[in-house]
């Protein structure tokens, strides 16, 4: 599978997790890892799985590195039909009212432009006892399995 791993981060945790997921998947898949701040909406590719790791900041807002991407998406309003993505959130239940809002906002935005979400969106809780990678690795392998079926169908 050809995977584009993208992260949106404020303090770097999502970047570290994305790098960990890349090391985990690299053996079996072709993976490229990039900051959402360096990714433009016209780079989406129907032959690839887009795996997004995104935190929340402030009052449930997108983290800084995801903001230019979200703005570009709103402005360019591309048709993302046939684009597949999976999304994993980083958050903190201390912010109970806005837990996981950053990744949620991004998912809604992509879906609104026609992209298809693969699998469930899970959000890691920084105040909980699990390590982010312990939650994210099983999620990632599940997303890849699901995407293999779907992207296979399309291609």
């Amino acid at each position, binding site marked *: 599978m050809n995977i584009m791993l993208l992260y949106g981060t404020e303090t*770097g945790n999502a970047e*570290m997790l994305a790098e960990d997921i890349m090391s985990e998947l690299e053996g079996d898949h072709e993976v490229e890892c990039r900051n959402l701040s360096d990714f433009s909406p016209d780079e989406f590719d129907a032959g690839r799985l887009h795996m997004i790791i995104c935190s929340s900041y402030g009052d449930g807002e997108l983290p*800084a590195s995801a903001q230019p991407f979200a703005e570009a998406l709103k402005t360019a309003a591309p048709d993302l039909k046939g684009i597949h993505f999976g999304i994993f959130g980083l958050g903190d239940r*201390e912010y109970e009212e806005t837990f996981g809002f950053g990744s949620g906002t991004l998912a809604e935005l992509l879906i609104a432009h026609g992209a298809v979400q693969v699998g469930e969106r899970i959000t890691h809780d920084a105040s909980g006892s699990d390590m982010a990678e312990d939650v994210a690795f099983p999620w990632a392998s599940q997303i890849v399995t699901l995407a293999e079926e779907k992207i296979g169908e399309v291609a």
Partner: protein
Amino acid sequence: MSRAVAIVGSGPSGCYLAQALLKAAPDLRVDLIDRLPVPYGLVRYGVAADHQGTKGVIRQFERVFERQGAGFVGNVTIGEDVSLDALREAYDAVVLAAGLSADRTLGIAGEDLQGVHRAGQLTRALYEHPDAAPLPELGSRVVIMGNGNVAIDILRLLAKTPEELAGSDLGAAPSDWLTRSGIEEIEIVGRSPASAAKFDPVMIKELVKLEGINIRVLGADRSDDPEAAKKLAALEAINGHGCGARRITFRFGLTPIELSGPDDHLKEARFLDGQGNTVILPCSAFITAIGFGAEVGLPRDLLIGEAVDREAGVLAPGLYATGWFRRGPQGTIPDNRADAQRLASHILADFEGAAALPEKPGRQAFPDWAGAVGYHGWKRIDVAEISNAPENRCRAKIASRDAMLALALQKEEVSQ
């Protein structure tokens, strides 16, 4: 060729800088030097004990040492144990990421009375910084002067019930101190109007979770500015909240003019409001949370004043600054990350521009550092603190420098 970089201070700025440098140039020899035997600066000793999620960045910093190969040199003070000149002599680049830890003062009469405390001192004592003075008696009526996130942190910790501190790393002695405090009333006073307060709205919203308090907000103004409106909405939402015993009062637009009381003991704080009327708040403790400045040790004012390019963080050839030390005491952890990433590119470009210069020895110039605390020494402290945590805490900090050193150094000798 492998250049040697010394980073003075292992707070978030220093750690993010090492991370960015080593990501771009894995062969660099990078050492993070700290006057404390333990790393991470204000992530350990400033970020609130009940905000453990924010401390999650430590996992990234651990990798800087464990995987990216940075060295930790703890318990060495630059400007005392080693001069800045000697350090510059030994390293190709020296970066000052030493933060700003001295409390700013108001400059009004009565600030040296007993009962007047400063946010930095108080938070260091609460979080068991090895150089902190003992926790003071606050009495029943506390005034907090300041409207930044640090002021709100202090308010929240003083206002929480013991149960609400579960899962934090607040130590046994400070927890006990809070339980016994006898605080009945906390007033938090801003010099500016509410619309210009510096705190983040989420910090205010968080207060509604507290069970033991009742909150009132007095004299908030109005504003059409969207950022200000968020703050005002958060204040409005908490006004009247709660029916706990401790009363919390927010007041705005009050300029402090004098602290006074008999026999050197604080009894009241006087302010002027916007109309020029005097407002008197009786209090047993007055805590200033109004920002930070440079400590003695490194000549910051001189260095920053003579900087080649302060904006870029270049003080002189081979000498740089980042984080709070460069910018002043503003900005959160992510601001330091952005700052450090920019400086890393700058330093690497400077190295390229000076490729012909011979490389410098780095830490080999300091054989004494065999007696400093290395990363493994710190990890022994870390492991002990985590494994000794009582049931409702995630860590039990070791508070004294001697105890830290005993653990960090003694075993290092045995294992060598």
